[in-house]
């Protein structure tokens, strides 16, 4: 495994992102290339999980678009990620909050973390 780690370190340019995890509400600024033009799209939602490591690490963001839940999976070190802004630090007990998918309305709230230490 160590050779794979070395290669990932060498060949992947790590994005400088703030520390975030499951339960946090984030805005992901994602570059979209249309022909020769490039624009930035924002996707705001709750982080459900982070998984993997190195070049293959990804995170899942869920938002409600009207009545329909939309989930997007972003690679953490993707060159298309322009930046991540943290809107709210959520206090959750799990690393992967898949139970959040079944929650709607009042129960789909996540308590805010009062004190945050990275």
């Amino acid at each position, binding site marked *: *495994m160590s*050779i*794979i780690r070395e*290669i*990932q370190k060498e*060949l*992947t*340019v790590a994005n400088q992102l703030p520390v975030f995890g499951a339960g946090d509400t984030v805005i992901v600024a994602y570059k979209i290339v249309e022909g020769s033009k490039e624009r930035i799209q924002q996707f705001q939602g709750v982080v459900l999980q982070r998984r993997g490591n*190195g*070049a*293959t690490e990804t995170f899942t963001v869920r938002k409600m678009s009207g009545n329909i839940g939309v989930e997007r999976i972003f*690679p953490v*070190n*993707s*060159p*298309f990620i322009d930046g991540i802004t943290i809107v709210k630090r959520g206090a959750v007990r799990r690393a992967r909050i898949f139970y959040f998918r079944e929650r709607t309305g009042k129960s789909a709230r996540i308590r805010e973390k009062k004190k945050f230490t990275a």
Partner: protein
Amino acid sequence: MPGIIGRKIGMTSIYSAEGKSLPCTVIEAGPCVVTQIKTQDRDGYEAVQLGFGEKKEKNTPNALKGHFKKANTSPKAKLVEFKGFDQANLGDTVLVDIFEEGEFVDVVGTTKGKGFQGVVRRHGFGGVGQATHGQHNRLRAPGSIGACSYPARVFKGMRMAGQMGNKRRLASNLQVLKVIAEKNLVIIKGSIPGANGSTVTINK
């Protein structure tokens, strides 16, 4: 075609210049030593035998010890013949730099053994599809394997249960994404046959 022997390290992904995430396999390839040169006059065909990986002297039969002594190298664990090397001398070292980034190669490996498998897993048969309506112990059965008194036999090649995997397989036209010469590594786009740590050959 000239080639090299290597060991599959594992898979990861790297980002291309356009920012696309490409799945890739890392192979530790070479250094290989030319252990024998087969010629038209002597052997009836032209080929070069390469050796890869170290092997203990005490585990090497005397006949092989003599074979490696001719090439003036230590005993090698794997020996594979390749065709198409233009110039090769006994004892030469073949390195990963015979490959260029961007070119297409073929990789031969032995697939992971899956053991004795039924037709559903091995050939993708659908199975019966229902558990009631008279079915008993038939859920994953193959069904009919032929007609009756004519032809009165089962045709060759009929897909049945049996050993799955652990077979030599070739993956062709895989792109070389990167060659790291100082570490003897080559990164190939996509997947290749075999488990991590298994021996593979890369052919041009």
